[in-house]
């Protein structure tokens, strides 16, 4: 008798706990829904291309991108990627791809600089992806990245030509690329001799490391270098810049001073005509701001 009473009351308590837990979960779900709706409705999310994702979000998105492409590329059988194909591909590449991706020793145009995600350096991509994994995104494009689908512009055969060229890029020096007829003289698209366009209201010529950090996104530096404090593809096209503030030489040839860094950032091919670091039409002010940020990386 006593035992049964106790069992009943345990049963009742258990039921009450279950109801409470159920209500709490329901309330939490509703609160999250309202929160998410408010987050969207009141525009809390900053869509600026210079406001990079947080590292975990970037990593997850990148993983989703890689997995999606790898999954779909599995069924694609590449044809032989001959040098003739690569040469055909180079001609297309120079007309349609270099604007955003650049080429060995050739900088991207302005349109390819301030994008998020930053269009990758394809010499780096070619080192880590299969031919089919290069083919798929060219043919189908990639949502929300700026990468268009080219299947209504080029035939599959032409896309394989482009792939053939890209697979050769990791073994191509800037001099090789120039010798093929790539990278003809290009004019700066705007006046880059004086102060930069978007910084008119501030006392000129005072280097601002925070703005410099933004400029590292704005000039797509993160497409080729690992730079502490930035989120990006972590590509090893050029050397990682951790500790660059304490490095003795820049580019292997210049003593590392503030002025030399500015010079190197603005006119790398004047400092070293052989370099793969491209001229990106960096303004004096932007270079000073970037140098100020890089100086802090001890």
């Amino acid at each position, binding site marked *: 008798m006593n035992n049964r009473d106790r069992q009943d009351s345990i049963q009742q308590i258990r039921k009450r706990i279950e109801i409470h837990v159920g209500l709490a979960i329901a309330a939490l779900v509703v609160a999250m829904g309202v929160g998410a709706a408010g987050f969207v409705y009141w525009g809390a999310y900053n869509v600026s291309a210079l406001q990079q994702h947080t590292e975990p979000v970037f990593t997850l998105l990148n*993983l989703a991108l*890689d*997995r999606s492409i*790898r999954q779909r590329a599995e069924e694609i059988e590449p044809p032989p990627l001959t040098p003739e194909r690569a040469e055909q591909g180079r001609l297309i590449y120079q007309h349609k791809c270099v604007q955003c991706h650049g080429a060995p020793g050739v900088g991207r145009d302005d349109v390819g600089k301030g994008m998020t995600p930053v269009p990758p*350096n394809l*010499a*780096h991509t070619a*080192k*880590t*992806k*299969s031919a089919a*994994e290069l083919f798929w995104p060219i043919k189908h494009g990639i949502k929300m990245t700026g990468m268009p689908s080219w299947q209504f512009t080029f035939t599959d055969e032409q896309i394989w030509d482009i792939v053939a060229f890209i697979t050769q890029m*990791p*073994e*191509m*020096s*800037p*001099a*090789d690329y120039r010798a093929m007829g790539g990278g003809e003289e290009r004019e700066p698209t705007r006046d880059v001799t004086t102060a930069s366009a978007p910084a008119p209201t501030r006392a000129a010529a005072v280097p601002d490391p925070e703005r410099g950090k933004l400029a590292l996104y704005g000039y797509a530096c993160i497409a*080729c270098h690992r730079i502490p404090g930035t989120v990006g593809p972590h*590509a*090893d*096209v*050029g*050397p*990682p810049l*951790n*500790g660059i503030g*304490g*490095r*003795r*030489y820049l*580019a*292997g*040839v210049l003593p590392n001073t503030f002025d030399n860094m500015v010079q190197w950032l603005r006119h790398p091919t004047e400092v*070293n005509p*052989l*370099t*793969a*670091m491209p001229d990106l039409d960096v303004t004096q002010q932007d270079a000073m701001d970037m140098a100020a940020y890089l100086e802090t990386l001890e």
Partner: protein
Amino acid sequence: MTARSVCFLLLAPLLATGCGSDEAAPPPGDPEKGRAIIRAYGCGSCHVIPGIPGADGRTGPSLERIAKRVYLAGVLPNTPDDMARWIREPETVDPRTAMPNMGVSESDARDITAYLYTRK
């Protein structure tokens, strides 16, 4: 959206790293010998080199993940042959470079390259 998909999400990073598409054959040369040779030449007085005790020099760039680097010295495509050449005769790659010619023999350069290509 159940245990299965949760499992997949947890496993995905492993899969992603596990089946790297094209693992190139390692370059010729003996990485273990290369490690000793790197210490003997004192490469670490100018470069950070992971795996080499005391290699924390800040004259030239860090050699972390050097096997993955696209360009050497900012000018050469990173292949084992080019790396060995750069180590032996840096001035032929870039006449203005601060990297000195240390009189490294061909076989030593191969071994150093083999070691550096383990740094991914």
